[in-house]
Each structure stands twice: as structure tokens, then as C-alpha cells.
């Protein structure tokens, strides 16, 4: 018996700032916004077995888990999950969580050049797989996530032609409508989430948003924002104008690695949910988040001591070899540096746990400051700290 997937949501806006906070109730889970969903690969938090995930502060643990087809479509794959007959949650031991199935891996750049009129290419461990709406819905039927991202043609980049951007908006809408039709006929009970396209062209963004807003979806995923090429204020401008056109009573989501500063900006524009792909990306590079004013003094060559208040620390750097400050989950920077040098898997475990904890606490604290009216102070302090490096 499938538990009701009806979403019971309420969002509130801070009167002067227009910053949102809200709750989404789904079954017995309550998702607080602004908030994060747990980025997973093949349905697991990277590097962390459940016992280690449970060591994270309970209040910070997201109630929403993001799966993606890049790491699920090949294996376990539709057939194996279908054979288990109970969907991907029991298959992958995902308990007490709402699941949202994204199309692509959040950390991978979109390779939309391979998308066609009727197919979107997804990159799995075995290579490229072309998905039609049918194939996608077959997967959703087998996986039975609570929510899912509809198949979409996400384009991103500064050298896109107007024609390609327009096509992306048109195709994404077409896929959306086909998905909704499929849903009706096949009775897939997962809640569809639509993707807003338009790259960096405002008119296309607004067209995509207005059209999508008319469809009966559970929420919106703002895709294709070019954080690499566009300035922060340009992204903020585009986001604000796009979100103004979307209904305020449905969640707005951004997938992909977002720095804490980018999260602040996005929240101010009206975004509700992010994923934890950024802490994962840092972990893979041997970098540690340092968001709570832990200033490790570091000794450089020539005995020059220098306070390092960066929000991201590169623990591969030789300067951490003798830094015995216990900055990473109770372990010293020197130890993590050593683990990285000797290529021990434990480096990934400790860094992932640490980075996840930092990121989740950041968003949690951020939300608390919105609710108790100290947001202005909080973000000003954070932004000025990021500036003085």
C-alpha cells in the first residue's frame, strides 16, 4: 500500500525582504525550507554508510533525498528494481525520507548537445543512454520515487544560439505535457516537478516559467543557470524575475553545487531547496568547508605564520602537514592531509561527513535567522567574512 504522496505545503514571506521560509509535509515527513536535499549516488550518500550518516546532528539531517538516473539507470536499473516489486526505496534501504528522482547527476555539467527532439541523453557508468518520455516513465514506474523531475532538455552556456534556447524551452514543455499524459494513463502516483529553462535569455526564461506555471506540477526546478559565466548579480536578476512569475505556493528548487554565498543570493531571490552536491564536490578534491570561524593558523615555508580564515581549505596543501588543530570531525588537519597524501579511503569518509555537517548547519542556521528576524545580520557577517580573506 503506497502511503499518500499528497503534499501539504505552506510558505511564508518575510514582509520587507521578501525572503521565503516554509514547510512541506509529505506523508509523515516534514521538509523545512529553505533547506537541502541529500545528494546521493546510486541512492547512497557518497562515502558514508548509514551509521555514519546518523552521526550527523539529527536536526540537520534532510528529510528529502535526491536520486539521479545517471547513477541509478544502469544499475540497479529498471529491471532489477521492477523485479523487487517495491520500488527503489526499500531496494536501496532508504527509510524515513521523501525521495526526488532527478534526471542528471547534479555535479556533472550538462551535455545537452546529444539531446534530440524526442530523447534526452543521460550519462551512466556504462556510457550514454538515450531516454524518451516513455522510457523515463517506465523507470519512474519501477522506481516509484515520491517526486520526480520530468524529462527536460536543459541547456546552459554563454555561446548558445537563440534558436537552441528556444528549442530547449519548447522541448521541455512538450516532454512535460507528454509526461503528464503518461501519468494519467499509467497511474504513476509520484508527483511530477517541472524544469524551467531559458538559459540566460530573460524572455525565454519568462516564457518557460509562464507556460510551466499553468501545468499541474508539484514544484519547479530552475535549471540551466550559468554560474560560471554570469556574474552573481546577473544570476540574481534572472532568478528574481523568473520566480516572480511562478506561483508562490509551490517549492522552487535549484540542483547543482552551490557555494554558501550562492545559496544566500538564491534564497533572497526566492529559492526554497538545494542539494548537497557541493560538499561532495569539495570532498572529491580534498577540500574542507570552514564556515564557522575556525581559523587554522598555518605555517608556511620560511616560518611565516598566517591565519587562514578561508571558507574552503585545501587540505592537500603541504602547509597542513603539521597543523594539529582538530578541524575536521575531531581529526586534525594534519591527519586528513596525511590520508590524502597516502590516498586512503578514510579521507573521503571524514571529509564527506565534515563537509556535509558544515553545509547543512549553514543552511539550518540560515533558516533559523530568517524565522527569528536576524537574517540581515547573519548574512552580512557571513558575506564580509568571505570578502576578507
Amino acid at each position, binding site marked *: 500500500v503506497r502511503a499518500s504522496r499528497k503534499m501539504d505545503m505552506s510558505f511564508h514571506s518575510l514582509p520587507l525582504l521578501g525572503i521565503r521560509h516554509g514547510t512541506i509535509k509529505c506523508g509523515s515527513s516534514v521538509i523545512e525550507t529553505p533547506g537541502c536535499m541529500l545528494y546521493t*549516488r*546510486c*541512492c*547512497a*550518500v*557518497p*562515502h*558514508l*554508510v*548509514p*551509521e555514519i550518516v546518523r552521526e550527523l546532528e539529527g536536526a540537520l539531517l534532510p528529510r528529502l533525498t535526491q536520486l539521479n538516473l545517471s*547513477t*541509478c539507470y*544502469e*544499475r*540497479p*536499473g529498471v*529491471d*532489477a528494481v521492477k*523485479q*523487487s516489486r517495491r520500488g527503489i526505496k526499500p*531496494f*536501496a*534501504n532508504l527509510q524515513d525520507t521523501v525521495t526526488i528522482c532527478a534526471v542528471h547527476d547534479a555535479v556533472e555539467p550538462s551535455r545537452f548537445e546529444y539531446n534530440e527532439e524526442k530523447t534526452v541523453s543521460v550519462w551512466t*557508468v556504462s556510457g550514454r543512454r538515450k531516454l524518451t518520455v516513455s522510457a523515463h516513465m517506465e523507470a519512474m514506474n519501477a522506481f516509484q520515487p515520491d517526486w520526480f523531475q520530468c524529462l527536460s532538455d536543459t541547456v546552459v552556456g554563454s555561446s548558445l544560439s537563440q534558436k537552441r534556447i528556444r528549442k530547449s524551452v519548447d522541448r521541455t514543455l512538450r516532454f512535460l505535457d507528454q509526461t503528464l499524459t503518461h501519468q494519467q494513463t499509467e497511474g504513476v502516483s509520484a508527483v511530477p516537478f517541472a524544469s524551467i529553462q531559458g538559459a540566460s535569455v530573460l524572455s525565454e526564461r519568462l516564457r518557460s516559467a509562464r507556460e510551466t506555471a499553468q501545468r499541474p506540477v508539484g514544484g519547479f526546478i530552475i535549471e540551466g543557470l550559468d554560474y560560471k559565466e554570469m556574474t552573481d548579480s546577473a544570476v540574481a536578476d534572472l532568478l528574481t524575475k523568473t520566480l516572480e512569475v511562478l506561483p508562490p505556493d509551490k517549492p522552487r528548487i535549484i540542483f547543482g553545487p552551490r557555494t554558501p554565498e550562492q545559496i544566500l543570493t538564491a534564497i533572497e531571490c526566492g529559492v526554497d531547496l538545494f542539494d548537497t552536491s557541493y560538499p561532495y564536490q569539495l570532498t572529491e578534491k580534498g577540500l574542507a568547508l570552514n564556515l564557522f570561524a575556525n581559523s587554522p593558523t598555518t605555517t608556511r615555508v620560511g616560518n611565516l605564520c598566517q591565519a587562514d580564515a578561508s571558507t574552503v581549505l585545501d587540505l592537500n596543501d603541504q602547509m597542513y602537514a603539521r597543523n594539529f588543530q582538530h578541524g575536521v570531525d575531531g581529526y586534525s588537519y594534519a591527519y586528513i592531509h596525511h590520508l590524502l597524501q597516502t590516498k586512503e*579511503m578514510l579521507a*573521503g*569518509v571524514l571529509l564527506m561527513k565534515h563537509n556535509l555537517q558544515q553545509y547543512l548547519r549553514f543552511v539550518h542556521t540560515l533558516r533559523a535567522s530568517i524565522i527569528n528576524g536576524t537574517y540581515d545580520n547573519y548574512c552580512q557577517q557571513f558575506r564580509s567574512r568571505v570578502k576578507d580573506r
Partner: protein
Amino acid sequence: GLDGDLRRRCADAMGRRDMPGFAIGGLSGGEEKSSFWRMVAISTEVLPKDRPRYLMGVGYAVDLVVCCALGCDMFDCVYPTRTARFGTALTSVGHSTLHLKNKEFATDFLPVDPNCSCSTCQSTTRAYLHALFINREAVACHYLTVHNVAYQLELMRRLRQSLLDQCFPTFVCDFMATAYPDKDYPQWAVDALAAVNIYLH
């Protein structure tokens, strides 16, 4: 090395020193098994009985059981964790191995070892671990390492209990029968156990 006289002399000389314990080395490099067990036996025969004997770099389940019979107390080995990282599960069912990356496990919804109470076996299936391994996720290694270590510890726990319960020879026979259901016991194991009066049927 594999020279009985030298080993005897070495063990004898070492044993005269009042040490907290003794490590038996030089036997973890894949030596021919009939020499291996004889060198272990010489070492344990000569070393003091009231000190722990730590056999370094051993090993596989059969080797552990036989060497316990020969008088060793402690072991270390990379095998359970290394083989876990490569996707091989150790299971008490037949004391055999499962290569979880094989396609046959893609739809095997049993836990790795139905008899095991480790966190991996309580929460995952062979099918899920197979998927994790094929996707090359590090966490697959961690899940399986937890299980393989639990397997080793449980084996030793049951072996120790059988010593306390005074039914060690029965334990050994049952273990060997499970590991070799066709009774094709390796000759070296038969000989080694016979040397300590445990006879496999």
C-alpha cells in the same frame, strides 16, 4: 623461513626472553601449504605456552581454523578487507565467497549472509551492493568491509566458544564439512589437524 631446524633454534632462543608475546613470521607469502603448517607447528611447539602467539598475515578461514588447532592465538590479514574492496564477500554459507560484481547478483535480494547480524546484512541486499559496486561507489567497499570483518570476528568467536565448551574438534569437523561439502579436504589441512589429533572423516 621454511627451514625447520633454524626455525626451531630461533623460537627456542626467542622463548628464553621474557616477552609479552611472540609473533610468528615468514609464513604469509603464499608458501607451499605442506611446509607452511609444519613451520607453524614447530613454532607453536617450541614457543612458551603461557604467552600469546601471533601468526602474522594469516588469513583465509581454513588457515585460521587449522592454525588455531596448531596453537596460535592471534592473527592479522589484509584479505577480508582487501577482498571486500574488490567486491568479494565472505559468507558463512559454505564458508565461500561471492563475487558481487557478477551479473547473477543484480537481482539477488538476499542479504550477503543470511546468518550474519552485521549492519550491512541487516540493511542491504546483494542486489543493492552489486549496483553500488558497478557504479564504482566507494561506499560499496565500506559496506562490504563491515560485513567481511564481522564474518572473521564471528568465526573466531564461535571457534573460541567451542574451546570453552570443550567441543573444539567437533567445531573443526563441522567447519571443514561446511567448507568442503564434497569432502575434498586439502591434504595439508588433513595432515596438520591429524598432527594434533583431529581426524577429518
